[in-house]
């Protein structure tokens, strides 16, 4: 019988900002940056990863007890807090695993400094504008009804962990509501991207694996290909029968792609 790795929860104060985080496992440092939906705190693959990595999972303020402070208005702002976190924990040679908005955060961090970062895997990452003014690079998840948004983000809409929220307690619903408010505050405009980021991507001088769901209708696979191409050492892999969250819809294939990348780049820094 396997015993799941021990999870340590703590709250750190980083330059005035309270950050909740979980740590589990032993080995090289792996920083997991969750998506706008916060699906990633209990991914089954974490148990396996914890055998080789010390996984650090900070919660973006607004996704737990601490609310988003007034002075954090953008992913750019939050990326400084996460860089402070790496300093505080004195993590080096870090593998960053970022999902959607978490991928954007990883890019913001690495464009500022990769001194503590060895490599990154970005899953359905947003954050960059590739198309022209009239191109909708990232579909508007606020404008369409819940069913349509689900259809954009999942190849099989029944796999949406938020398919049915009617069983949520008021407290759970309040937590989810706060997290969505935090995301709206920092992602509404410019919509899920930072116009300056594209011209900073050359600074991301570490191997980056871009992972994409082949059926992602929120950010189409071509967006992922463009991202991999725009990075100095980017590579692209597509996961069939998956939308914006391939780690949810095709967890085995996703885990295989991730492990492949980690093996390929185990010598990085």
């Amino acid at each position: 019988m396997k015993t799941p790795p021990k999870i340590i929860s703590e709250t750190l104060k980083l330059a005035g900002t309270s950050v909740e985080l979980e740590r589990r496992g032993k080995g090289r440092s792996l920083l997991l940056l969750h998506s706008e939906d916060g699906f990633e705190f209990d991914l089954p693959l974490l148990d396996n990863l914890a055998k080789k990595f010390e996984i650090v999972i900070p919660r973006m303020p607004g996704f737990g007890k601490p609310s988003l402070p007034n002075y954090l208005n953008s992913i750019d702002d939050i990326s400084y807090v996460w860089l402070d976190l790496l300093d505080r924990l004195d993590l080096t040679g870090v593998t960053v695993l970022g999902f959607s908005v978490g991928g954007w955060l990883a890019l913001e961090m690495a464009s500022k400094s990769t001194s503590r970062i060895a490599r990154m895997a970005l899953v359905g990452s947003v954050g960059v504008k590739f198309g022209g003014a009239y191109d909708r690079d990232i579909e508007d998840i606020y404008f369409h009804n819940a069913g349509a948004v689900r259809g954009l983000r999942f190849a099989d809409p029944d796999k949406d962990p938020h398919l049915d929220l009617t069983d949520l307690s008021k407290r759970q619903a309040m937590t989810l509501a706060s997290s969505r408010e935090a995301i709206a505050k920092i992602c509404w405009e410019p919509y899920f991207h930072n116009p300056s980021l594209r011209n900073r991507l050359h600074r991301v001088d570490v191997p980056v694996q871009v992972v994409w769901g082949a059926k992602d209708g929120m950010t189409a696979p071509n967006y992922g290909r463009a991202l991999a191409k725009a990075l100095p050492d980017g590579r692209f892999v597509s996961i069939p029968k998956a939308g914006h969250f391939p780690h949810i819809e095709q967890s085995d294939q996703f885990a295989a792609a991730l492990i492949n990348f980690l093996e390929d780049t185990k010598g990085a820094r």
Partner: protein
Amino acid sequence: MDFYHFTEFAWPHLPPDDEFTSARLNLPSSVYDPKRGADLYNMCLDQYVLADELGLNCMVNEHHQTATCLNSSGTVPLSILARQTKNARILILGNPVANLADPIRCAEEMAMIDNISYGRLDCGFVRGVPYELFASNRNPTETSERLWESIDLIQKAWTTHDGPFNYEGKWIHKRQVNVWPRPYQQPHPPVWTTGGSDLAHACRTVARGFTFAMFLTPVDRLSQMFKGVRSWCKGQGLQRPADDKFAFMPLVAVGETEKEAREVIERVFWYVVNNKAEPQHRAPPGYVETSLYADFLSGRFTGGRTDAIRKQGMEYFRENHVAIYGTPENVVGQINALHRKTGGFGHLIAMLHAGDMDFDVTAKSMTLFAEKVAPHLKDLGTVSRNFGPLRKLGGKKAA
């Protein structure tokens, strides 16, 4: 009590009900026919000219990307009325300053209109309904702060007469603010805001000496808010706000007979029936308070105010004073009763036109209202004795 005529300039020629999901935001403008639309604009403006002749005041508003309101700028009809009316107070309710790119331009336009109308402007500032955030792209988590920051800056810009000042606030940056012209009314036109369930906003409005307005709100809720403000003022040691710090807008129809009034109010009711919207457009994250948004996410809350009351039907509307209709005597009685139940209000904005009502039908209801209802109620309610913030009991002004 002061009375205002209101029409929302709605486009009434909508597709069959099962062919569109929302009259707001995503309805293509192919549904709009410019030839009929031009007639509609002019017919609605004619109503306001008639209102002026009848001794009523005028209220205009704006909404965006919607068939429910063809005024995509309230400033446009307001400017026309500044010249085409002679005596009416002209009220804009209001300027969506939280969504505007430049609140100072709004200060300038309102000051111009105040001058052109020889000081007849009542200037409302609104946060805007949630639908507007998709048209304006404004972040829903910011709009309350932006509304008050804009109001503060506009008031300062209207009342500063010694050259440019610097402003670098949270949402607005202007290094050289020096608004020309200064308003005709001194120190500035009366200011209004609107609100729903946010009592703190209502209290802030009234304490500042502004007028707080609510629209189509059932009487219990209306009373709760108006009384809530009065009670808060008392708790703060402020003078009791006069009735003219409160305003209400119901649907209104007056007929020579009960039957005639009922037929007309059914046509005004069109606004409520056809005000279709998709649920996600009513609740972008951060617009409503977190608790209500949580209920929206978990399905505990499904519709907005209009949805809830729409289902209840006309009798419910009448009992709750959301729709006020009948013969003139009957309508006088209903307004008196509403005034009593709410603890008093000083402005009644009568939505006397909606849907496919033509000019003549509207004009008759307006005329009966102006000639046989308003004169009986003009002395109802108390009037503020001073302009500006409510005074602390003991003589000092509120902060």
